[in-house]
């Protein structure tokens, strides 16, 4: 990069650097704004920005880059933030990270809008009727202490999103000090069932997938290019997979009922009847004819005709896929959201893993993962069982004090949970929040958090790539609002209420973090290096790379206990499956208030700023629905109204509404845009794991008679090129890729 040379210069001066991060007299906005105006030259009016003291590397007009970690999702991409005159301007990927290798997705790019968001909470707020009253931090801490006094550990609950690294350690210690075991780690969208199935089949929850080594990828609804596990990393591997070796390009086949971004990039996209992914997997095993023993026994019944009938995939197609999988090896078979989202999700995933094993992919494209040698820092993985458990507790009125951090259950809990009502039953609710989201609005005390670009921290990604790594998060800018605090600092403050002696050595979380890292210097690869040097190097790199420990991989997927239920009978009253669409940029809706994400068109429908109901054109014609009709989507739990978009990439028996929009809080960019399909989700659970089966909600739709203009990027020609050669396409037999650069 242009001025990256300065990064090296900065290395030795972390403390000076803090000075540097001070916003340098901010007249920039005014200056920039008057640009293009009539007259903007006003000699002698404007003040020149200057330093009082400056180090050699502090040069006005020259950007400096700092490494940190992206906090927009859990994938753990390392970022490289451009800082100029004390303001962070743009985030790039850190080329040294094995995870994202200098790349960054749209969601990550929008991280600066999380930081600069005008709707951030700026003061601790105490509920006073329907209003939040700004109070001081001292008062807030005192209040928490007061509320916790005399409350037993059983009566305290802490709900959080996935946490890792030192924050997890500190949080654990705090909960210990409160004597509570009620830490509910909740992620609304997480591959929990797949993790469980993987554990069963391979002995690990999340093996390392090698797309780059695979010749064929057969994905059952895993949106690995969009939102699944570590999309930026997978995208890079995907690029290699497409290039292939010797011009032998990798082939992607995607099986799902609603097209995802990954499905849109497939060579063959197969719309299966919702929930029959497992059947197709067994059908392919059968067609391969490679299985022996009990597996062969199991798949015997899954002849092509039956599979074709149940899944809706033609027999010819099954043959082709089987032939291709036989011909090109190794391959990789994935189970994703779509496969796991049913009551028999575990079975689906097991069948898919079985296919992997039959194809002999285990050990070739499915490798043993590595993890950091510090089990206490390994991420605690969120799931929906946690939410259910907590909800049950809340419903029973068990909790007197409830904490909420990095999760928005009021928004993301299925409507059937009635979470909001149950939440109200808790005695005293504390929310650590960046914004006043739905959950924070229900809280009694809201503690404002530093943005991810202001805070210190460490992060350990769940999905590691080459070797293990601990990611460093560090401020790229001084606090934008004086009265926000880092989560670590708050926890430290709270823990000091209980164990003042143990933690008195740590002035703040920064000191804690530094101490903790330096304590393990040896294990972190800094043996023999001076403390300051090691710490500075660590901060400069933004990543600690470790050898890591490798868990061994087993291949013991078996046919035992694998029973796939017959395809569900159509429900007369609720004939359609509701598939919650997970988009790459909005995920579970925690970033919906970042305007770039709102205005970035959904890749598949090109819709912006709003929710929509995807319906197959055939089904729509049957129902007399056209694009832009407002329809009412009703489930057993509730109903929402949204505009229709006719979309051929969906099974006619299903409709899809994207999640993430439909906030009624979270500020100007989120509130009031779209609908929230979580609201109408039934509480159906996966049989084996107890996870919420997200795809099991059945709905009916009815026209409301209203019609709107769908706000989208595509024009009236829609997806057509009208005979003009705009986006070209060739098939592999017409092209010679071997000579390409």
């Amino acid at each position: 990069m242009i001025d990256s040379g300065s990064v090296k210069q900065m290395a030795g001066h972390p403390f000076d650097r803090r000075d540097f991060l001070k916003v340098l007299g901010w007249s920039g906005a005014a200056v920039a704004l008057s640009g293009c105006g009539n007259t903007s030259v006003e000699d002698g009016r404007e003040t020149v920005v200057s330093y009082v003291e400056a180090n050699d590397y502090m040069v006005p007009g020259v950007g400096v880059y700092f490494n940190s970690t992206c906090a927009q999702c859990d994938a753990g991409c390392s970022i490289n933030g451009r800082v100029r005159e004390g303001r962070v301007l743009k985030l790039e990927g850190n080329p040294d990270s094995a995870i994202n290798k200098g790349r960054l997705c749209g969601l990550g790019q929008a991280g600066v809008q999380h930081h600069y968001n005008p709707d951030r909470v700026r003061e601790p707020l105490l509920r006073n009727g329907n209003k939040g009253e700004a109070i001081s931090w001292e008062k807030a801490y005192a209040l928490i202490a007061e509320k916790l006094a005399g409350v037993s550990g059983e009566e305290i609950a802490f709900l959080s999103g996935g946490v890792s690294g030192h924050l997890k350690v500190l949080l654990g210690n705090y909960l210990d000090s409160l004597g509570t075991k009620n830490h509910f780690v909740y992620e609304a969208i997480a591959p929990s069932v797949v993790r469980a199935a993987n554990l069963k089949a391979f002995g690990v929850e999340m093996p390392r997938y090698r797309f780059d080594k695979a010749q064929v990828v057969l994905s059952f609804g895993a949106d690995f290019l969009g939102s699944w596990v570590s999309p930026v990393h997978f995208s890079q591997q995907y690029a290699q997979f497409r290039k292939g070796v010797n011009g032998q390009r990798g082939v992607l086949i995607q099986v799902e009922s609603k097209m995802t971004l990954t499905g849109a990039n497939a060579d063959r996209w197969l719309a299966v009847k919702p929930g029959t992914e497992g059947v197709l997997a067994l059908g392919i095993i059968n067609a391969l004819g490679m299985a022996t023993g009990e597996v062969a026994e199991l798949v015997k019944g899954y002849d092509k005709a039956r599979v074709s009938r149940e899944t809706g995939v033609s027999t010819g197609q099954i043959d082709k896929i089987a032939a291709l999988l036989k011909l090109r090896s190794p391959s990789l078979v994935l189970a994703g959201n779509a496969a796991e989202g049913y009551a028999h999700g575990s079975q689906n995933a097991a069948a898919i893993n079985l296919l992997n094993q039959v194809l002999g992919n285990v050990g070739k494209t499915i490798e043993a993962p590595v993890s950091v040698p510090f089990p206490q820092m390994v991420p605690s993985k969120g799931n929906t069982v946690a939410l259910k458990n907590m909800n049950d507790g809340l419903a029973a009125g068990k909790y007197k004090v409830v904490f909420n951090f990095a999760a928005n259950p009021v928004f993301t809990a299925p409507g059937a949970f009635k979470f909001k009502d149950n939440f109200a039953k808790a005695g005293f609710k504390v929310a650590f929040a960046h914004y006043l989201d739905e959950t924070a609005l229900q809280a009694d005390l809201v503690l404002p958090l530093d943005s991810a670009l202001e805070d210190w921290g460490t992060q350990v990604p769940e999905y590691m790539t080459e070797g293990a790594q601990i990611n460093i998060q560090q401020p790229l800018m001084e606090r934008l609002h004086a009265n926000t605090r880092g989560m670590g600092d708050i926890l430290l403050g709270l823990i000091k209420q209980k164990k003042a002696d143990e933690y008195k050595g740590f002035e703040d979380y920064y000191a804690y973090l530094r101490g903790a890292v330096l304590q393990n210097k040896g294990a972190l690869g800094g043996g023999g290096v001076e403390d300051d040097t090691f710490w500075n190097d660590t901060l400069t790199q933004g990543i600690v790379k470790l050898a890591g420990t490798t868990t061994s991989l087993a291949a013991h997927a078996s046919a035992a206990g694998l029973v796939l239920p017959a395809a569900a009978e159509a429900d007369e009253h609720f004939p359609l499956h509701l598939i919650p669409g997970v988009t790459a940029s909005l995920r579970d809706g925690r970033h919906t208030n970042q305007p770039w994400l709102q205005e970035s068109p959904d890749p598949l429908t090109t819709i912006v700023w709003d929710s929509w109901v995807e319906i197959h054109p055939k089904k729509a014609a049957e129902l007399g629905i056209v694009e832009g009709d407002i329809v009412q989507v009703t489930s057993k739990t509730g109903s929402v109204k949204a505009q229709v978009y006719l979309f051929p990439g969906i099974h006619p028996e299903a409709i899809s509404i994207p999640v993430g929009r439909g906030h009624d809080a979270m500020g100007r960019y989120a509130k009031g845009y779209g609908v929230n399909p979580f609201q109408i989700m039934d509480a159906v659970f996966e049989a084996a794991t107890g996870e919420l089966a997200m795809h099991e909600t059945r709905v009916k739709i009815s026209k409301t008679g209203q019609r709107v203009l769908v706000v989208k990027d595509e024009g009236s020609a829609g997806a057509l090129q009208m005979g003009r050669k705009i986006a070209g396409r060739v098939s592999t037999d017409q092209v010679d890729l071997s000579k390409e650069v």
Partner: protein
Amino acid sequence: MKDIREDIAWAKINQDVMKSLENPRKLYWVILFLALAAFGFGVGCEIYQYRTGMGVENVNNPQVWGLYIATFIFWIGMSHSGTLLSAILHLMHADWRKPIYRFAEAMTTFSLMTAGLFVMVHIGRLWQFYYSLPYPNDRGIWPNFQSPLLWDAMAIFTYLSSSVLFLFVGMIPDLAIARDNMQPGWRQKLYTLLALGWEGTDRQWRNFRVTYLTIACFLIPLAVSVHSIVASDFAMSQQPGWHVTSFPPYFVAGALYSGCAAIITLFIILRYVFRFETYMTLPILKKIVRLTFAIAMVWTYLNAVEFAAVWYSHDEASKAVLIQKMTGTYAPFWWGMIFCGSVVPLVFAFKRFQTNIPVLFAVSLLLNLGMWLERWMIVAPTFSHGYYPWTWDHEQWPSLVAWGMVFASFGWFTLLFMIFCKVFPSVSMYEVKEMVYHRTLHLKKSENAEQGAH
């Protein structure tokens, strides 16, 4: 039927025309007030637009031009008939133009001024308009002489100044009459100043004739070129539906057409408002109507030529635009244009309608509507159906502000025109006298001939 009665006394001509400067019918004030109100509304719209941004026109990124450009071409087109009547027919010694060319020429001037306003209204940064003027400046750069838009600006400016000059020169003898007949006051001073000391001497008349003729000769190619250049704004671009060779003549024909239609409208209004029945006679009207009919047919023919050219070419994109015009979003307007422009003028073919004032009034308004639609149909469909399908047909319907501005332009034009007619003689007195004289001569000649036959 004769164009004018031969028994009108010269003094009466003076008197009648001078009267129009004093006390028109009440309708005059009604029109003036309506025009002022419409113009005022437009000023409000412009202020709002100037402060808020061009977005209030409700145009968007592929469709960057909207009603303003369409209406701009409409007004430019309107200006052509004045030149047609005053210059071309002057050269052709068509006597019947004499009572009506003055207001036609005024119409030219004012519609050009209106068109000019639209250029201003249209550009995004009105306050930087001077960037497009070629003058030595401290930036050291020039406008882009390659841009048809710049040619356009220059052509319009030249045409406007020549038209003003032509209007003024043609008015000098009448201004002298007005000077001599006017009560002392600001008006008399104005006429005195403008009459340039006209005494009516032979020498003055001789110079006057030569000057007038020269400007007329100069003006004709200018008029043709102006609209050809406006056409090249489109034809010189690369867009389907615009990149058409026949555009310049098509534009010129359309211009003459709309101008004639406007003349019919104004003829009828002036005739009533200023009590000009004696001078603006029905036979003259009939001649204009026939002229208009001929031009309408030429325009229809050129339309057909354009379609045929597009159809036979292998340019798929242009074809798609044409099909889109006929069948797409804009179909009602496009068919409206065909109806108003090609079907409605067929009424003129019937003799009994050629002098039927209510019918003519209605038809002339329809023709104008058709010609306005034509301009809109040139501008809009290409934007909504260009080379790049992804950007087709984004929602775009002109906003209230845009419509307001269009209506206001009619107000502004009417305002200028009405004020002109009240301040200056809108019927050329000296030329009507000539006409009457010619008529008398003609009568005498035929009488002599008759007598000779006996």
